[in-house]
């Protein structure tokens, strides 16, 4: 009877706990997501940014090449002429409306590649989930960076979380 308890209960428990104890000293693989972020690759393609020059002028010239290159047809650009009174971009035209439907976007980066002025870039902010479909239509105000170089903040060493 005592042999049965040893073979049937104690031995398997000890051997099982040995594996558990051995695993304790291994490296932890889990990324504790909301508290710590895993490191993204530099060319990770997530949320778009419309960038601007250092003097505050928009890079986008409203050429709609991004909308033409988009396989999901999720970009809408409406261009308008710059005037000397109201100048938004160095070129002749600027985008008066620039909308991206983030839900239809497949983050392929073709807009980034097609852009002649590197106005639109894809960066690493992936937290885009929303409660409604309307929230995910990003307008120009949401896409335009607040100050020159905001989109490249994530490449600075201080931005590492």
């Amino acid at each position: 009877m005592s042999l049965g308890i040893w073979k049937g209960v104690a031995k398997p428990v000890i051997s099982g706990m040995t594996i558990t104890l051995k695993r304790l000293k291994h490296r932890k693989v889990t990324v504790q997501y909301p508290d710590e972020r895993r490191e993204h690759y530099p060319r990770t393609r997530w949320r778009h940014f419309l960038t601007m020059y250092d003097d505050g002028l928009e890079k986008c010239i409203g050429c709609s090449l991004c909308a033409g290159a988009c396989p999901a047809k999720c970009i809408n650009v409406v261009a308008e002429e710059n005037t000397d009174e109201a100048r938004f971009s160095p070129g002749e035209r600027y985008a008066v409306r620039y909308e991206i439907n983030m839900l239809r976007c497949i983050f392929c980066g073709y807009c980034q590649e097609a852009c002649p002025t590197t106005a639109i870039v894809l960066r690493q902010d992936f937290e885009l989930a929303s409660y409604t479909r309307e929230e995910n239509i990003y307008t120009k105000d949401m896409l335009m960076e607040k100050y020159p170089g905001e989109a490249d903040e994530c490449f600075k060493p201080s931005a590492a979380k």
Partner: protein
Amino acid sequence: MPKRVETIVLHDSSTPVLGDLQKGGNVVVTSLETLLDQARAHALWPLTFGLACCAIEMMSTVASRFDLARFGSEAFRATPRQADVMIIAGRLSKKMAPVLRQIYDQMPEPKWVISMGACASTGGVYNNYAIVQGADQVVPVDVYVPGCPPSPDALIFAIMKLQEKIKRKEARNFKDLRLFEPTPRTLEEVQS
């Protein structure tokens, strides 16, 4: 007891969300519901509903690198009777839509839906005759996740948003689940 006031807020898929249900309600029941909401939010059992490539990311969300078990959602159920949240992972074809609806109907109340990825949310690149342009045409969707496919952390973020929504008591009882429209609205009301 004062008359219960129900305000109808415009919801995305043209279905109403009823608010202010607890106006003039019972304090004891409200506290109990808060407790239940906490319990529901931290034990969301997803339904295995991988339709396409997004399912791969959904699987890796449960794996040890991202570990959805930290949010109480590790128990993927293969039957709708034991599931709380349906993660529609992948493009929803028109042939699959009635199946999706039936499985959604078989889930017990309360139930939630996460539409994962571009295809499930809007159709994505597949704007053609075969794909439903958004799963919210078939079932009411609570959280939309952009991405093609969304990375596991993006899905975890969506589940956190859903937990917030449950704790905010927005989707709780039978009426809130938007299975029917109690007062049909005209087109002008929807558009305004």
